């Protein structure tokens, strides 16, 4: 009898709790009181200096813009966002160190970054082992999600990315160009001491035969190559229709300039390394027409992008690029997830797990377009094939909707 009363009591309690949980779950603001006056700490590991310094500052600007915008319009259910950006100097070891330092700080809810795939290999498994959600905003290499601990293929639970992978972008780019111009030969120029670049090279090699392009030569070079004349001379000896460049920083621009000097009149196709105004500006007229698959396009007019571009110009007096858009989207994704995660602010490890689960169901409008994660935590979005315009900007060649 006693047992029945107790069981009945527990049952009523459970129903009440479930009801409370249900209310807060459905309205999404049920626990907003606990958010009021609190701070959500985010850490970002970016390459502000070094080879990735071409991309990191853009990501940082985009993130800061989103943080300021959210904070000035009431925060996340009343909680403020605080973003701590650390420079990893584009160095893998330093990236892991910086991540470790941020993690040890103890109050960080989620991490963003690192800028380079090369560093992600060190940082992401670290975040996974500490059970801290980490959102990659610019890494495009292979084995970023879900198998962040590759060659171990166990899916990583805490690693996400909002940056379009090269496995999607490069084949789309090659497909679009092949269908239009029907090239028959190509040479691949690839930096061989960098994960991002060599992954891109592997993807090109896998893709070209699908479109009847014969790869005449693969010219590999180290990132720190000073003078590209010898490398380009060798590539041009084969007289290719297309030069594929998978590399980052100023290297694609330097190769284009040198190749035009040496008389190359064919097409440049490349990867994510092309997709920043800095590279387009350095290449100048020599880069005109160079095509790449991009996650974002400046002149898209849907409201979530138009607003972003307007705000970015107002704050920084410059045009945003893809990396800024992805950084901005990264903060929106984390803020939206935090809003729905019923954070306690007292149990950080528990909050991290709640945030992780909330991230899986994110569905919002971003400058990249409507945004959702796939079941493997990767991005699902349209690919914008763009071409350098010769003046530091880009024009849209074609957009290709996500097929998966």
């Amino acid at each position, binding site marked *: 009898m006693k047992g029945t009363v107790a069981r009945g009591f527990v049952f009523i309690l459970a129903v009440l709790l479930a009801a409370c949980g249900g209310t807060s779950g459905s309205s999404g603001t049920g626990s907003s009181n606990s958010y009021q006056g609190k701070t959500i700490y985010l850490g970002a590991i970016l390459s*502000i*200096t*070094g*080879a990735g*310094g*071409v991309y*990191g*500052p853009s990501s940082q600007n985009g993130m800061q813009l989103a943080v300021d915008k959210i904070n000035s319009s009431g925060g996340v259910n009343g909680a403020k966002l605080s973003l701590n950006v650390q420079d990893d100097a584009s160095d893998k070891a330093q990236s892991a160190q910086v991540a470790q330092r941020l993690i040890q700080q103890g109050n960080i809810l989620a991490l963003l970054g690192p800028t380079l795939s090369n560093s992600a290999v060190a940082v992401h498994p670290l975040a996974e082992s500490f059970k801290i959600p980490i959102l990659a905003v610019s890494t495009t290499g292979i084995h970023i999600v879900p198998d962040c601990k590759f060659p171990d293929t166990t899916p990583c639970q805490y690693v996400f990315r909002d940056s379009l992978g090269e496995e999607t972008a490069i084949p789309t780019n090659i497909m679009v160009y092949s269908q239009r111009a029907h090239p028959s030969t190509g040479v691949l120029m690839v930096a*061989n001491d960098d994960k991002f670049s060599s992954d891109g090279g592997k993807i090109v090699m896998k893709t070209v035969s699908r479109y009847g392009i014969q790869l005449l030569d693969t*010219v*590999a*070079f*180290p990132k*720190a*190559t*000073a*003078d*590209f*004349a*010898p*490398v380009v*001379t*060798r590539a041009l000896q084969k007289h290719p229709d297309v030069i594929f460049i998978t590399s980052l*920083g*100023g290297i694609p*621009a*330097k190769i284009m*300039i*040198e190749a035009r*000097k*040496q*008389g190359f009149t064919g097409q440049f196709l490349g990867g994510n390394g092309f997709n920043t105004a*800095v590279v387009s*500006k*350095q290449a*100048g*007229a020599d880069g005109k027409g160079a095509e790449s698959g991009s996650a974002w396009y400046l002149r898209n007019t849907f409201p979530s992008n138009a607003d972003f571009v307007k705000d970015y110009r107002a704050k920084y*007096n410059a045009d945003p690029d893809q990396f800024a858009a992805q950084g901005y989207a990264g903060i929106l994704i984390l803020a939206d997830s935090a809003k729905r995660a019923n954070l306690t602010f007292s149990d950080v490890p528990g909050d991290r797990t709640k945030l992780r689960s909330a991230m899986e169901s994110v569905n919002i409008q971003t400058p990249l377009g409507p945004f959702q994660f796939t079941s493997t935590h990767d991005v699902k979005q349209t690919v914008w094939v763009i071409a350098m315009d010769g003046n530091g900007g880009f024009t849209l060649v074609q957009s290709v909707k996500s097929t998966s």
Partner: protein
Amino acid sequence: MAQQLLNAIFIGSIYALFAVGYTLVFGVLDVLNLAHSAVFMLGAVITYSLVALHGVPFLPAAIVAVIVCGLLGLLIEYVALRPLRRRNAPPISALISTIGLALIFVAIVEQAKPGSFFGWLWQDGANSVRFPSNSVPNPTYHLLGLTIEGTKLIILATTLVLVLVLGSIIRFTQAGRGLRAVAENRRAATLLGIRVDRVFASTLFVSSALGGLAGLLFGLAISDISPYIGRDQVELKGLAVIVLGGMGSVPGAVIGGYLLGLIEVLAFVRFGSNIEAGVAFAALFLVLVVRPQGLFGARLRERI
């Protein structure tokens, strides 16, 4: 192949010009000036700044940049070297203090953005830029299937002329004799009435001016100007060149520069880039096994 040999000569010229300044300081002061690569970078950055941000024509901009780099050499001497010398600090201390100065120079440039304190000097942070395309005429000739650029011919000529001038100054003038005396024996030179500190200062000036010139020519020929061109692309190679040529030897640095350019390009053509640097440094190692003093370091007592 002929094109690749031309490529080797051009990159060799830049190595040579960079290494001459490097080796000059070592020959006279017995100190490795590791800020040399930062001055190399600033030569390119200052020229770019004057041309692209302040609308100065290329030639005057280049002259100003070379002079400013020379003055930076004096800064290195007065800030990083002389105070340590006064305290009889070991050469390794000077090595560290020049590394410090190099880091500061690089940081100043990489942190500079529009509106920041050094925004007048540089606005592109860690990014690479090139000279505006209309600022320097670069006629490109296509002869017998070879591509020859005007700027690269200028680099070759500049290197050869400057090295000959420098060589004859050191060999035939009073100042050059003073320089050699200091290099030979600092104390004896002081006793002979040579103002050693002045020799040091002028050595740093000339060395850094040459470094700056090498940097701006590099920026011009390679279309790459960034805070890292010195550190990432020529510093180690410059060191290899002066070791190869014989520490402190000016002709050694020149020959060493061309030799390294040649070895690198040949290694690339023959073996590909995966082991290009390996082959270049293996060749260097072999030379040093046979001649530990370097190619031109035979007369160790008579330097420069």
